[in-house]
């Protein structure tokens, strides 16, 4: 079986800085994989290249049989990759429901003309969007906040909403950038369960960046480790935990759960 995502020799340069180079990775359908590494290693940058925010200066990204390197972000999303952001980027002045609807946009069919003239297809399309978006909110326990502006949500709920929004774009591959940042141990624990649940429910493949080793080691099947823009290790949590290179660059000492 061929992989859902394969990345070959990926690299990007900002001015003189090679932020990422020679990255090779693959993901099979349904895998949950971790991407870890010290601050500034190039994890988020890798995400940015996978989602089209940055165009790689080198290398190849194959997703679902197509090359997507350098494609516009919205096209990548429509191919089936969606993401959350390290620093939350919700549409602050939009309601919680509308945030999800925006991501649902690509799935709707009613066109500009039908909306402007309020043709039946507009009403039908909008109704369908509303139903689908509400369904996502329910899963995340956000339906009580549906009309609240996103900026007024508590932090933890904002993180959840980001994930809900990403899911509404109907991805095959979901990229999560530090979903547990700023959460305490209990909240992190809840989040782990949530990730496991949506993965099953939506038959997702997930790549996640996280510094919380409890989370990464707890749920990831495989882990890639980046340092200074290069992959330094790749393996099961157990392998990674005892990999001397990773310990030196990242973990500091062997992590015991």
């Amino acid at each position, binding site marked *: 079986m061929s992989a859902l995502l394969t990345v070959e020799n990926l690299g990007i340069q900002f001015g003189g800085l090679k932020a990422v180079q020679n990255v090779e990775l693959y993901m099979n359908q349904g895998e949950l994989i971790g991407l870890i590494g010290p601050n500034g290693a190039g994890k*988020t940058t890798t995400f940015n290249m996978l989602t089209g*925010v940055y165009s790689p200066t080198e290398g190849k990204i194959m997703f679902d049989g197509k090359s997507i390197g350098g494609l516009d972000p919205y096209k990548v999303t429509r191919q089936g990759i969606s993401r959350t952001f390290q620093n939350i980027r919700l549409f602050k002045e939009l309601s919680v429901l509308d945030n999800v609807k925006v991501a649902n946009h690509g799935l709707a069919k009613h066109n500009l003309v039908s909306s402007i003239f309020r043709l039946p297809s507009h009403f039908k399309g909008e109704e369908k969007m509303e139903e689908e978006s509400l369904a996502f909110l329910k899963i995340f326990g956000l339906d009580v906040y549906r009309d609240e502006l996103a900026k007024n949500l508590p932090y933890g709920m904002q993180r959840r909403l980001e994930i809900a929004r990403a899911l509404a774009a109907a991805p095959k591959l979901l990229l999560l950038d530090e979903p547990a940042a700023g959460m305490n141990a209990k909240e992190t624990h809840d989040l782990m369960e949530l990730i496991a649940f949506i993965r099953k429910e939506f038959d997702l493949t997930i790549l996640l960046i996280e510094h919380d080793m409890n989370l990464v080691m707890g749920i990831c099947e495989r882990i890639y480790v980046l340092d200074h823009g290069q992959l330094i290790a790749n393996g099961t949590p157990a392998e990674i935990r005892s990999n001397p290179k990773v310990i030196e660059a990242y973990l500091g000492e062997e992590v015991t759960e």
Partner: protein
Amino acid sequence: MEWIQQLVNGISLGSIYALIALGYTMVYGIIKLINFAHGDVFMLGAFIGFYAIARWEMNIFLALILAMILCAVIGVIIERVAYKRLRNATRIAALITAIGVSLLIEYTVIFFRGSSPEAYPTVFTTKNIEIFGVQISTLAIFILSVSIFLMLLLQFIVHKTKIGKAMRAVSHDADAARLMGINVDNTISATFAIGSALAGAAGVIFGIYYTRIDPLMGIMPGIKAFIAAVLGGIGIIPGAMVGGLFLGVVETVVSALGYSLWRDAAAFVILILILILRPAGIFGKNTREKV
């Protein structure tokens, strides 16, 4: 020969734009406010200088200093009264307020003295130096030197002095600057004072050079300074200088080619082209937002 003459014409026009743009970009760079009232402070400077020279019979340098001081005070008052409350508001709200302040200054002046123009008294008998048949006015050379000097001075203030560092800190993150012990209000006031003093000086020099001043004289130079500042890269002091000179030369060249009516249009076309190629101005770093 004529072409060299035109180039000289362009540079002297451009150095006036640069002079106004320097103060503009300074305020712009620090508090990110499109201060449309800058052109009007420039106008006030021109009038203060005029009254000082023509009515109170001051000498030109005293008049210049008086205009700078009064403009600095006016700039600080404007900031304290009209802009301070809006620091946390959207920038567009501040822009509208700036437009309001601009109108207020213009029409208050008209209210008190009418809208007719005033002619600056001749303070220097301008000599023309002739080099290979090209006429260069000594005043133009003086203005260019003043602009360059001020650019260097501003650059020094902003990058090397303590107050300059405070200004930059405030511009990036006012709350974090507070935590460094920086008095944000005073720093912003200092920025306005310097910017407005420069505008005042530019007003006096403009009056001496072009003779005519009137209550609406600040509008066009204000816009041109805005263009020059953006062209050079917002908040970048040498950028304002280059932007101003560039604008002056473009305008003059277009006129020289016989398209004087298309002059402003040509300036805008070039501006837009440059921005499309360099979306952050000539000197601006085209940094992609880090996601």
